[in-house]
Structures are given as structure tokens and as C-alpha cells.
């Protein structure tokens, strides 16, 4: 059987991200996530250096790897050119590929991100689109966002006059042919299959926890997963 660690080594971000860690802790000192949560990138890099499958499996199924905010401040300051933020990317990727992400409440939130970001990319060609964002889900956008949404055509058309229509201005409608090419890239390179997996795994988890689930974005399972992690509520 292939060692789990060998699979991690297949990820170029692991190869690129780990040279030789001297355990100095500079990454943890600069890390915004480490100042907010019980999170220590130094510890994770240290654990990875020993190349132990049991330790790796625990990381892949745990909460820790999901705390990083991907600012990559660690890369700038590491005196040995390591990038803990890149190692985290490789770990999260393997966690999803192995299915171990479902063992952690933060890992299971990938489904929510797929609904919010993944589906938007495939539908519109943008990572986010104003038409799908409101102050119910993102109240910090403030009353100005309610005003923008209410008057979206009048507001966005001031900047290129092609809101949701052909043209080159702000929030233009990206041509169908470009969207078709995007879908084909997602299919050939495996992300479409990943999206399906996230949906299927979420459906199973919803059934297991007796939570309402359907294909709409704001189903009960989505809202519960979006709002809470196991640290916030009792399962």
C-alpha cells in the first residue's frame, strides 16, 4: 500500500514549501492565525519533517490545518526559505483527496465554500458576484451594500455600462463560450469531480446528523455548517 506521506510528496507545494526547518518559530511569531487561535505553524512544520504516516493522518483529519489564513507572511520571514502556508495548501488538498477532511468540522465547511465560491465561478466566470451577495449572509457590507444591490443596474452601469450584459465594463456578462471553456478545464483537471465529491459527502453527513439537505444554497445543512464548528456547538 502506498504510504500516505508519499502522496503528500507528490504535491509540488510540499516540495517547494519545505527545505529544512530549524524550528526557530519565526513563522508562528508573524502568523496572524497564531495570534487568534491555538495554532502554531512551527509545530506543523516540525511534525511534517519526521515523515510519519500516523502523525500525518492525524493532521489531515484534524482542525489545525484549517486555521491558516493564507496571507503567506511566513514565507517572507522564514530564515530557511520554508513556506508553512504552502505546506498547509498541500495538507488541505490531501485531506480532501483522502476524504479525511470529513473528520473535522472545519474540513466539512469545504462544502459551504463550494456552494458560495465554486458554483459562482462556474455560473458567472467570477469568484464572487454582487447578485449572489447580501447583507443577510454578510451584514458587515453595511447599508451601502443594500443601496448598491437595490440599484445595481444604475450603480454598476456608471462604470462601463455592461453590467450583466455584453461589453468590457464592470461585471460584464462573460461570454458563454468562455464559460464553456472554463467548465471543460474544470472537468479535465479534476475540480468538477472534486465539487461533486464535496456535495455527495455533505449529503451523507446531513443524513447522518439528521439535518435537512437539498440542492439549494441555503439548505439547513449549509446554514449550520456555515455558522458553526464543533468548537462552537455541541454535536
Amino acid at each position, binding site marked *: 500500500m502506498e504510504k500516505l506521506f508519499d502522496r503528500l510528496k507528490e504535491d509540488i507545494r510540499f516540495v517547494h514549501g519545505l527545505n529544512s526547518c530549524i524550528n526557530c518559530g519565526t513563522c508562528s511569531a508573524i502568523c496572524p*492565525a497564531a495570534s*487568534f487561535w491555538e495554532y502554531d505553524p512551527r509545530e506543523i512544520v516540525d511534525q511534517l519533517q519526521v515523515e510519519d504516516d500516523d502523525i500525518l493522518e492525524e493532521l489531515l483529519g484534524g482542525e489545525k490545518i484549517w486555521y491558516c*489564513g493564507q496571507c503567506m507572511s511566513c514565507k517572507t520571514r522564514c530564515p530557511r526559505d520554508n513556506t508553512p502556508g504552502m505546506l498547509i495548501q498541500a495538507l488541505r488538498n490531501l485531506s480532501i483527496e483522502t476524504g479525511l477532511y470529513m473528520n473535522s468540522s472545519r474540513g466539512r465547511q469545504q462544502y*459551504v465554500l463550494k456552494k458560495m465560491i465554486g458554483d459562482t465561478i462556474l455560473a458567472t466566470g467570477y469568484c464572487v458576484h454582487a447578485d449572489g451577495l447580501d447583507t443577510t449572509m454578510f451584514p458587515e457590507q453595511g*447599508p451601502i*451594500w443594500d443601496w448598491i444591490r437595490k440599484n445595481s443596474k*444604475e450603480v454598476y452601469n*456608471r462604470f462601463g455600462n455592461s453590467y450583466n450584459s455584453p461589453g468590457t465594463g464592470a461585471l460584464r456578462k462573460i461570454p458563454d463560450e468562455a464559460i464553456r471553456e472554463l467548465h471543460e478545464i474544470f*472537468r479535465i483537471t479534476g475540480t468538477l469531480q472534486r465539487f461533486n465529491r464535496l456535495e455527495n459527502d455533505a449529503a451523507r453527513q446531513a443524513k447522518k446528523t439528521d439535518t435537512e439537505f437539498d440542492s439549494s444554497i441555503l439548505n439547513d445543512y449549509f446554514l449550520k455548517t456555515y455558522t458553526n464548528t464543533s468548537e462552537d456547538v455541541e454535536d
Partner: protein
Amino acid sequence: MSKTERGQFIWKDFQKEIADDHYYYVRSCIRQNFFPGAEDVFIKMVTKDLNKDLVLDPAHTTCTGIGYHTDLVKMETTMTVIARQFAMMNQAGYKNLLVSCVTSFGLYNEILEIWEEYPEIKEKVGEYLHKATGRTFKVPENLVHASDLIYKYKDEISARAKYRLINRETGEPLRVVDHIGCHYSKMFPEKGIGGAERPRVLSGLVNTLGGKTIDYPERRLCCGFGFRQYLLKSSRGYSLSCTYKKFKSMEPYKPDFIITNCPGCNYFLDRWQYVISDLRGETYGHNGDGIPTLTYEEVAALCLGYDPWDIGLQMHQTAVEPLLYKMGIEFNPADKYKGYSGKNLEKPKIPELLKAY
């Protein structure tokens, strides 16, 4: 070696090549949604004020950056989407890629570095692209962020400026917080003007336009986006706390405004001021005002005399008027909420504490 000489020595290592003309512009998802006037006026400044050639291609797409950094989109997919952007640029007959978004800029640099080191990966991506779209691609000869371009032409902008970053009443330089997006140069310091520790891309512009940047303890701290951390309600406090830490650190220096080069950072430093005012009853400007938070395009455009509402400053939650008054900019407050058709739209609701105009 004196401190200054040491600084100059380091500075030489962080110059970068910025093409003179002919750019293929790739737009930012976040900027188009939240500060679309910034991109719109950037295009006008480059093509009309600086008389450069810039092409807009409706068929380019997101680079998938937010999807990539939220671990949804696989690396092979992101690489192939980016290869498609390059193919579109090739098809349009351009060699210089001009990037609006800082997340995209970091990602383009990351991928180009990987391809250079591992050509077999680039070859594989070429195969994916061809299979999916029938396209082939060549990498750009020059890759720059849009703030690099404004930096390059800062003297030309300054020479044409109608307004300067000077307090009209006191004659003193405005005090400015410059906030550089992490992915601009923290990952690849040699790709950013001034590198990661002494980035000059915004401070150089501010100084040229007459302002003075503030050095405060948390100057280089992330805005707190954190990708999944902000997007998920359960971890959004991480994002807010990072921004709060920055505001508490800059507060004693009494900044007149904040300038950013990353669309996301501008959003967070603008919007979290509203939340902090609501949750903690704190505002950081004078008498209930916030600290106006503007992008580099907006700042350059204001100095060139563009109308604040034509460049979208009404779309900020933290009011920009305190800055307009300090700079002595002539504008019509009644035009703030006019739509594309010219009609006056119903005004937005006013936040409880953060001052609105």
C-alpha cells in the same frame, strides 16, 4: 555604512522592470464588485491621461484565486485557467500582462516560478489547456500589477495633478497609512517595488503627490481576509480582529486616509470600520468620521481632478468626504447618489455611529 546607504543598497535589489506600453488588462473579481469605479478610472488614466495602449478582453475570466486559496480549486485547474488567460493575451497580440488583483498577481508569479523550475508541469498544463479549449499559450514577457504602473508614471501624474495630498487649510502634507496586499510582495519580494519589508509602490506615489506616509507598529500586518476565514461566518472574527489590531495600532498617528493596492484589503479596511463603530462604539477619524480608505487608482484620479462620484467613491461605506474637504476638492454633494440614467436614487440608510454625508 550609514543607515541611509544601507537602505539605498537594499532598494537597488528591489527595482523591477515595468513595460512602457501595450498592456493586456485582467480585471479583478473583488474590485469589480465593490470598487468598480477604481478599475474604470484606472483604464481612463492609462489610456487618456498617460496615452498608453491597454486592451480590454471580455472573454478573460477569474483566475480562480479565491477558489484556489480556499482549497476548492485544484492547482492543476488554476494553472490551466491561468494558461488560458495567457492564451487570450497571445491571441490579442499582447506580451505584457497587467493585473488588477493582488491575489491574482501573487498567483501568476507563483505559477510562473513553478513552471520555470519544473518545465514538465508547464508542459502538462499545456496539454490540459489544449484538450479543454484547443488553445496553446506563451507566458507573458512582462507581468506587472496595476499599482506598479501607477508607480512608474507617478511623476507624470504629479505633473498633471490638479490637487495634491496637502491639507488645504494648514498647508501640511496629509498623513497617510499605506497598506500593501500580502500577496503583492510577501511571497515574491523581488516582484514588488521595494520588496516585502520596504514596499515603495504606494508610499512612493503618496510622497510624489505631496503626502507623508505613517510608520506604525502593525503597518505590515495582513488586513485579515484569510480567504475561508472571512467567507465562513464561524471564523469571520479572525478577519475582524486583524483589522481591529491594525486600527488600534494606527489610531494614535491620526491618519487622514488609508491607501491600498489590493481590492480585498480596501474592502476590509473600509467595511470593518462600520462594524467596529457598531459593535464597540469606536470611530477613528474626527468627530465620528471614519478614516477614508481609498485605492491607489482612486487617489491618483482625485489628484488628477476626476469627479469623486464618477470614480465610484459613493460605494465606500466609510465616507470619503473628510478627505475631499481636506484636499479642497470641488465636488457636488448632491450628485453622490445619482445613477447611470442621471436620476437621483434614494439614499442609503445611515449607520448608527459612523458618520455619513
